[in-house]
């Protein structure tokens, strides 16, 4: 199936439409809530939670014996929340740092989950297969009921975020201050963490335990590059997430045997990469360009001021001087001379240069500006 076929199928094929809608919704909710995780410096919490959810899935299966995805995800939710709670109490009650607590919970829960999975696989039960899809996710198993739940949770999260927007903002920026203003920051904290856990658990079926944290972080990290406004960041992260979901599904549907979860995560990764380099606000390219431009500007100005120093004592400012004199000035290169000429600040004829009217005025104003700045900084 080619790419264009995918898009025509998107409108006619029920299964493909369901899956695409599901991954888009998942991307949107993860991007939205991931922004909060990133800004709270809890990027790794998502990783720990998703891994912590695995034993819950296995236990839910062992207890009920059914493979109903809602029951399994309920198990994931419970064990994800227990993992989160453990991390928190470890950080507050022991001297362990949060990265240690995260690492411990992540590996312990994941190890236990793997143990249970292998145990289940050894059982003589025909119903056992397919649980390992929660490791790397399998978008193809999304059915309409899953999408309905995703839609419900996404809408509810959006509603809660909008309702408590101001409260969440101040919680993210300055918890203690929020406390003194009378906001119950513990409650807000629990609320936002619960939503994050919920989003992660919903994504397990599609993206899987191992890659889930990328879904949470990548869109948010990319969005941060493009804006300095929280609302725009959250919105943009949701769009990036949804876009990764749809495009990832399209690619994996058009190429046989490509697993959807990893493709979605890779698309999100590409968006992060592009954002880091090309962002007009914080991009590396822009920073480098500005740096070089600044250097060049300083270089020109320094050279021009040096010339101004030589020329200003002459009654005729256009009096020609030998280029050789400039050799005493270390910042001087043939290139700067040429660039100053194209700017119209100097004239070069043979071995001589002379200051133009424009160059003289530019240098004088620069000189005066320097003086004023010097006065300002000494006062």
């Amino acid at each position, binding site marked *: 199936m080619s790419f264009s076929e995918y898009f025509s199928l998107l409108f006619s094929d029920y299964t493909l439409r369901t899956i695409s809608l599901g991954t888009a919704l998942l991307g949107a909710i993860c991007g939205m809530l991931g922004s909060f995780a990133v*800004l709270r410096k809890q990027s790794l919490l998502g990783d720990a939670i998703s891994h912590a959810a695995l034993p819950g899935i296995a236990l839910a299966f062992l207890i009920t014996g059914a493979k109903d995805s809602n029951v399994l995800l309920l198990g994931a939710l419970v064990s994800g929340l227990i993992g989160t709670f453990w991390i928190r109490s470890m950080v507050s009650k022991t001297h362990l740092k949060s990265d240690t607590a995260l690492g411990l919970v992540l590996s312990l829960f994941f190890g236990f989950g793997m143990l249970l999975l292998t145990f289940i696989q050894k059982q003589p039960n025909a119903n056992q297969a397919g649980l390992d899809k929660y490791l790397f996710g399998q978008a193809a198993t999304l059915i309409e009921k899953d999408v309905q739940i995703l839609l419900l949770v996404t809408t509810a999260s959006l509603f809660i975020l909008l309702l408590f927007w*101001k409260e969440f903002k101040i919680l993210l920026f300055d918890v203690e201050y929020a406390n003194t203003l009378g906001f119950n920051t513990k409650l807000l904290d629990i609320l936002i963490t619960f939503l994050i856990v919920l989003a992660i658990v919903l994504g397990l079926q599609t993206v899987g335990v191992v890659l889930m944290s990328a879904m949470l972080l990548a869109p948010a990290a990319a969005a941060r590059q493009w804006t300095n*406004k929280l609302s725009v960041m959250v919105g943009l992260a949701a769009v990036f997430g949804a876009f990764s979901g749809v495009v990832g599904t399209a690619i994996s549907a058009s190429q046989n045997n490509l697993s959807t979860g990893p493709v979605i995560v890779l698309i999100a990764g590409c968006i992060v990469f592009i954002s880091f380099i090309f962002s007009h606000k914080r991009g590396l390219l822009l920073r480098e360009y500005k740096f070089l431009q600044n250097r060049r500007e300083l270089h020109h100005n320094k050279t021009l001021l040096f010339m101004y120093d030589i020329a200003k004592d002459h009654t005729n400012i256009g009096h020609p001087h030998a280029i050789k004199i400039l050799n005493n000035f270390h910042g001087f290169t043939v290139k700067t001379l040429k660039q100053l000429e194209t700017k119209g600040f100097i004239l070069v004829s043979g071995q001589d240069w002379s200051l133009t009217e424009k160059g003289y005025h530019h240098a004088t104003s620069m000189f005066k500006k320097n003086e004023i700045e010097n006065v300002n900084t000494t006062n």
Partner: protein
Amino acid sequence: MKNPIAVRVDDLTVAYNYKPVLWDIDLEIPEGVLMAIVGPNGAGKSTLIKSILGIIKPIAGSITIFDKPYKKQRKHVAYVPQKGSVDWDFPTTAQDVVLMGTYGDLGWIKRPGAKEKKQALEALEKVGMLSFKNRQISQLSGGQQQRIFLARALVQNASIYFMDEPFQGVDASTEIAIINILKELRKSGKTVVVVHHDLQTVPEYFDWVTFLNVKKIATGPVKDIFNDDNLTKTYGINYKVAINK
């Protein structure tokens, strides 16, 4: 007549782990004073303020603001935390941070409107930061960030201001701007309590002082108690400071 007591602390003891950070503090802060809290690192200065503001739960003791617990007097109290306590790379603008000062009055869910925005702009003007209102906060200098924090507290329009090292890492012009605002606050009858590090400027900036080093060493008017004896007791070394009376 003696001023009424703005803040009363009785038998306050605070401990994070095993060692007490504050031990049996009794303190009265009269209304209308500009008070410095001084003491060495780890003396519990920030902890004292945070306990008064209810951020830290004490092990023992009681604290009242105008004879009522803090919870009932929230709207009369404003707080300027240490500048380093937040991440200044947070995606928001100067005006937005100042607006946070109105959140307490607004309460849950209600969003700031035109009235609150006007208050924020006025506060920005007071601290000389109006032209920076749309600036991303990471692009502000340390002194400017401190002014933004001060503006946020001014918006709260409180009667008592607690400030945690507002002069730390700011340049001379910001320091002067801040102290002028503090003096103005006192002039209009507000009570201002400041955790302060520069002992040299205590007599010039403040009229009351509290010496703290886990225990309260002394509290009172600067002219009566800011002397070498108390400084030595607080800092543990023979401290000499030039006091310009």
